[in-house]
Each structure stands twice: as C-alpha cells, then as structure tokens.
C-alpha cells in the first residue's frame, strides 16, 4: 500500500483544491465525408461524429466516477472546416455550422471546434468564405467554436487576414451586442496554432493527427497555489528555486491524473489517446486562478513589477514537471492568463494594476496570449488587427504559440464591465492607449517570417 501521506496529498488535490479535468476533447477526422453535395457532406459528417462521439458522455461519466475526478467539459474537434468545405457556398457553410451545433447538442458536448482556417501565408477563396461567415455562424450557434491561424514562424504574419478578421470581430460583437459581444469569445486567432490543443476556442483536429483521438486538458491553478502556500507556511525559508520545485512536483501529479483519465476515456471510446495539455487553465472561481499563484509567490499585485518573471518561473516549472510525468504532452501547455476567466486577473485590471501592455509582455513567457480581453466597443477593426499583430509577432519571433481573443463590447467604454457568464467570466473593459495605427495596418500584405540565425 502507498504511504498515507501520498494518499492524503492526492485526496487534498481532489477535494479541496479544484483539481479537475477541464476538457476531454475528441478529435475526429471528417475529410472522408467531403462531398460536392452539401447535404450529403452534412449527413456523412453528422453520422461520423455520432459514431465516434456518441458515447462521449457515458465514457466521461464512468471515468469521472471511478476516479472521483470531475470532467468539466466534453468537446469535439473536427478537421478544419475551411478545407473540408472548400468550394462550397456561404449558405452551405452556415448549414454545416448549424449541423455541428445540433450534433453537439445531441452528443451532449459543450463545444465543437474546428470551424477553422489556416491563412498564415495566404487565403484561398474557401478560407475567405469561412472567415466572412463567422459573424453569422458564431452569433447563430451556441456550441460552435472557430479559430484562424493567421501567422507562423515559417510564414510570417498575414496582415490582410488580420484586417479582415478585425472587421469580422466587430460585426460579431455587434450581432451579439445584448450579450456584450459574446460571439467573439468563440473565435481565437493564432500564431503557430497547435494541431492537438484540447482547449476552446482553438481546438481543431490537425491534419497530422490520428483519425479519432482523445486529447486532455487538465486544470490545476488551485492545486499549484495551495502547494506554494503550504510550502511557504511550513516555516522553512524558501528560495524561488524551492518554489519552482514545488510547482514541478505538483505539475507531475496533475499531468498523471490527466494521462490516466485520457487513456481510460480513449479506451472506452475506441479512440487513440493523444496528449495531455499541461496548461494551467483558470476558472472565474476564487482559488482557481493563475493570478493568485503569482500573488502567493509574493507579487503584490498582478501586473506589478516581478509579474513577468514570476510567470516565467511558473510556466517553466509546470512544463518540467509535466514533461517528466508523461511522454504524451502537447497542445498549448503553459499557464493561461485569460482576463475575464480569471478572477484575480480581472480584479487586477479593475484596480488599475494590470494593463494591456503588461499583459502583452506576460504572454511572451507563457501560454496563450491576449485572451478574453474586453475592449471598448468603439475599438476599430484596424486597431483590433494591430493588437492581434503585436501578440502574434511575439509568437512568430519566439517560435511559440500565441493567440488572441478580443471582445470589443458594443456600447461600452473602458472601465465599464463586460459579463460573459459561466466559465467565460466577466471583466472590466481595458483601455487601448496611444491612438490608432490604421496606416500601418492599411499597408497590408505579409510581415515576412523572421530570421532564425543571428540570435541576439
């Protein structure tokens, strides 16, 4: 039998510290369903999704009960829709998205992702059609999530696509004005988008992935925070290296839980087990926040001096612990700082400690990017594109994933509050300082890929 102390540590993680599996995401290859006739395509895709994912509710429930670990979200990620529906009309795209929404309802999943396009170097007419369909699709559906990879370290940044997306984001916000522009929370723009990410809105089933694959997103900011607190309360004098060690050990345990659950769910569904995404994904609940971790490390206010360094330590320690725990690690794998979804970050914005510029700096050392950022409703398409370009440039140059989820909240100004509800949380609206850069964005074209030598 295992030592009682080990058992108690695990019991504590589960009972008191919010350890859960945030997402079980089933990736499904839908390319075999491609057909010139949109009705046939929809029928085949629906049948295939039901065949692969029909049992996802039961599989998750059984596994969660057996191990006593809540599985918060079940999701489906499909092959990128822009490629699957290449050459189809805008009506066919909308029809397909409505089918996805209905099948999500039928299978009982929370979200279905993969309404996606990759346009980092250029846009096909199908990619453009998908992007232009986003306002209708994301305002008319509940469960569908979309993502666009608009930049990569190999291709650079597609500024034409970003400006188009800036306009699309504004339209999406307007169409869901009564919900503070909520449709925008279901669209994620990426640099170096991972193909096996289980987290929404950016999950899709990548081209090089297995036919049917289970990817797992664990949560655990609460567990990490408590581990640091306990270590600090022990009376021992701790250095930052000691704190990194605590985080590493905790990340090890969290990752192992993810792999165990992932393997079991995959076996029950007859799918392959893919990866555990190590990301620390906060929820709006108090005690389940990445911001609070920085605070227990001694950063007085998130956004204050030391925030970026503390976050870098946290992010790296999580990866080290997780990488040792499992060889099947992938996705985004880093600490998330989605402002609206993290109570401490939202509070830091409210108190004026955390601004857009500092958030951007922090994303240089963690996952994911400017995520769930509520902006004034009059933020122009050009400014949205320029903000996105700044964030994606960090990913492109540092050869990492960065992402952008911006919500211009219709009719509201900086300092007012945007409320999205549930796991999407709420946040004060951040100010966009220093005027517009319309002329820069209007130049368009592509920012070339960065040099990989002369690394100074």
């Amino acid at each position, binding site marked *: 039998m295992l030592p009682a102390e080990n058992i108690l540590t695990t019991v504590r*993680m*589960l009972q008191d510290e919010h350890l859960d599996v945030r997402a079980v995401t089933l990736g499904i290859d839908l390319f075999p369903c491609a057909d010139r006739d949109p009705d046939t395509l929809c029928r085949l895709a629906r049948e295939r999704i039901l065949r692969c994912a029909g049992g996802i509710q039961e599989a998750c429930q059984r596994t969660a009960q057996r*191990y006593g670990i809540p599985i918060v979200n079940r999701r489906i990620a499909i092959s990128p829709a822009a490629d699957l529906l290449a050459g189809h009309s805008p009506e066919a795209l909308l029809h397909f998205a409505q089918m996805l929404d209905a099948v999500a309802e039928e299978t009982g999943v929370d979200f279905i992702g993969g309404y996606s396009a990759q346009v980092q170097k250029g846009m096909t007419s199908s990619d453009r059609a998908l992007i232009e369909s986003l306002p209708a699709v994301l305002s008319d559906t509940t469960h569908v999530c979309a993502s666009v990879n608009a930049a990569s370290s190999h291709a650079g940044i597609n500024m034409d696509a970003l400006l188009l997306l800036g306009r699309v984001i504004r339209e999406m916000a307007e169409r869901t004005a009564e919900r503070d522009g909520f449709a925008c929370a279901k669209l994620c723009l990426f640099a170096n988008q991972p193909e096996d990410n289980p987290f929404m809105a950016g999950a899709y089933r990548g081209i090089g992935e297995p036919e049917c694959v289970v990817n797992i997103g664990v949560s655990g900011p609460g567990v990490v925070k408590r581990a640091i607190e306990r270590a600090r309360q022990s009376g021992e004098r701790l250095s930052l290296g000691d704190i990194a060690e605590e985080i590493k050990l905790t990340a090890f345990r969290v990752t*192992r839980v993810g792999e*165990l659950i992932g393997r079991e769910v995959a076996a029950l569904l007859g799918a392959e087990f893919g990866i555990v995404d190590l990301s620390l994904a906060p929820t709006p609940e108090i005690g389940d926040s990445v911001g609070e971790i920085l605070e227990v490390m001694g950063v007085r206010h998130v956004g204050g001096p030391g925030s970026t360094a503390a976050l870098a330590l946290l992010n790296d320690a999580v990866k080290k612990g997780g990488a040792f725990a499992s060889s099947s690690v992938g996705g985004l794998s880093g600490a998330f700082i989605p402002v609206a979804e993290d109570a401490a970050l939202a509070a830091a914005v409210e108190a004026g400690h955390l601004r857009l510029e500092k958030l951007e700096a922090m994303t240089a050392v963690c996952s994911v990017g400017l995520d769930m950022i509520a902006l004034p409703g009059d933020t122009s398409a050009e400014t949205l594109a320029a903000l996105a370009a700044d964030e994606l440039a960090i990913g492109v140059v540092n050869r990492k994933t960065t992402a952008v989820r911006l919500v211009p909240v219709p009719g509201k100004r900086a300092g007012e509050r945007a409320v999205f509800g549930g796991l999407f949380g709420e946040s004060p609206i951040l100010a966009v300082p220093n005027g517009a850069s319309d002329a820069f964005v209007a130049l368009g074209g592509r920012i070339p890929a960065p040099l990989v030598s002369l690394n100074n």
Partner: protein
Amino acid sequence: MPAFIVSVTAPDRTGIVAGVTAALRDLGGNITHLNQTVVRGYFTIMLSVDLPEGVDAEAITARVAASAPEGELRVGVMPFREGAPPVPSPADRFVLAILGRDRPGIIARVTAYLAEQGINIEDFTATVVAGDLVLIFGVRVPASLEITHVQRSIETVGREFGITATLQHENIFRATSEVRAVRTLA
C-alpha cells in the same frame, strides 16, 4: 515441508527481528512471507515459515520466546493449512480514505458496512495527525457492485460521524505517487 504462521508482539527495541529469525533458522526453518510494523512503540511481526517435519507449534513457541528475556515476547503460532483457493471474482482495488475528528465507533461502523457489501479489506492503517483521525483502507470492490452507490453510501456513513470519507480507484493514487508509466497501471 509443513508451514506455520507465527506472530510476535512486544514493546519495541532493537534486535527483536534478529532474535526471532535466528530462532527459526536454528529450527531449520525458511521464512517465506513476512510483515512487520510498530504501533505506538509496540512491535508486531507476522510471518509464514516452512519447517522440517517433526517441528511442532509448541517447539516453535518455546524457541522464539527464548530469543528474548523471559516474558518479553508474546508469541502466537498456528499451522498453515492450504484451503480451497478463494474463487476469484473480478474486483478492482480502491482506496478508502477517512479524515476527521476522532470518535469511538468510526472504524467499527465503516468496516461493518464494508463487510455487508462483501468488500474485502486488504490493507488498513489508522493514525492520528494533529488530533484528526486518518484511516486509509486498501479494499477490493467486487465488480458486481455499483461503484457510485458504494461511494455515496460511504460518504453517508462518514457524515453520520462528521468526517469525510472518499472511495476512489487505487490507480489515481498510483499515477500521482509512483514513478512508473501510466500505461502500465493495470
């Protein structure tokens, strides 16, 4: 070779195991299984030993007791009899962890429930940490039982005593505590 189950209890001190095992060796014995622990300063060992024909329980008791000053060891010996092997029924290992303020009767109540359900206890430790009782059971839950029902019943028993009781599959604890590949957890 006949086998015997031998148990020895005594106030703990250095050298008890050396004395007991030397006594068994001198009788020509070979120890095949052994478990030893110390509870509140009291030593207990339980072992199975193969011995040559002709050595009986009385001789073993006398020789083992003589390995220490008179009256120090309490020795119990019984012959091992190979019974019919228990019919294997599919049953996974679960860990039942009970935490909370100590009160008389908790263990009796919990174990009565386990017995009623046909859940066998394979390991069990009880300690008190800072005034709180910590009970850890390694149990085998027959596959025929509905695990969520068992979990709920155990939580209810816990609530009667104002303690928390959780029953979870052992693999979750092994995955988080052991350095081994998760795929190898059966």
